């Protein structure tokens, strides 16, 4: 399991990255992160929504009410232009950190 701090820090870039693949909704986002991380990243279900709302207020994402396959109401989120910019910025930062770690650990374990 990842630490609470790391999960919190990675929430926004993860949401932005997932939404860059197409519009989605809260429950699906949680499940997708769980699947991709092999259950190592687990968001507290309800806590995702305040983050989504904050990101919407920031103008990174937008939402619309739609319907599920069974006709139930569902709120879909999609990435906005500013969100794409934010994703690029955040990706650059994470890549920079990741590159440093890769180099450090490569040297250590060679």
């Amino acid at each position, binding site marked *: 399991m990842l630490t609470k701090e790391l999960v919190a820090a990675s929430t926004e870039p993860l949401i932005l990255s997932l939404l860059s693949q197409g519009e989605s*909704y*809260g*429950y699906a986002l949680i499940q997708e992160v769980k699947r991709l991380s092999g259950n190592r990243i687990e968001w*507290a*279900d*309800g*806590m995702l*929504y*305040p983050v989504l*709302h*904050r990101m*919407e*207020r*920031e*103008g990174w994402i*937008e*939402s*619309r*009410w739609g*319907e*599920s396959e*069974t*006709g*139930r*109401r*569902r*709120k879909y989120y999609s990435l906005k232009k*500013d969100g794409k910019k934010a994703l690029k910025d955040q990706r650059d930062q994470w890549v920079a950190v990741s590159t440093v770690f890769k180099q450090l650990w490569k040297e250590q374990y060679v």
Partner: protein
Amino acid sequence: MFDLSRAIALWRLECLRAGITSPEVLDELESHLREELEQQSTSGTISQKSFDVAVQNLGKTGALRNEFRKINRRPTAVERLMIGICVILVAFIILLSGVTVLLCYARWPERLVAATAVASILIVAFGWKRVVLFLPVISHSGARWAAGLACIASGFILSSSFCNYILPHFESGPDHQLPAIGPWAVLMIAVFSCAGIGLLMSERERRMWGLAKPSNMEPKNEG
């Protein structure tokens, strides 16, 4: 027999009591809850136990409320104080304007012209928030500042020109007292200053102050 509708209604009531009052937020959380229940129940029947697990997974209502409050926070004590000071100032301006109109202008037509100007200034001051929605958002910071400051300066230039070149033609009497048309010069400054401040605001600042055009986020009235 487990009654899902009743259980959800009770859960929504609990959320309301905890302070999650936005219907849109409650609808979204309910949608999540139903999604979770749908996934849990392979046989199609939902039990009290699976409902309790779904509610538990969603998180404690108090913690959820605190997270939402961080986004929709209420004004702090300092902000409330500032709002109070603004209200007092506006009340003082209205009172002062009323007294000035009554004392400085002897004739009722003049009083009416001056009072209309004062009322127009107040309309601009209170209504500029709505007009900002229609002003273009200039993305380049330098261009935004140039356009905003130019707009504010234009108000002062126009007002000054109005006072120096147009107003003297309306002066009456040996005391050269400014006629009631004078307050209209202030209106020009008010209009251009408000437009200028609007132009100075970036998209992010407009969103922060609730002056951005609403996005397509209104829930449809379905079911």
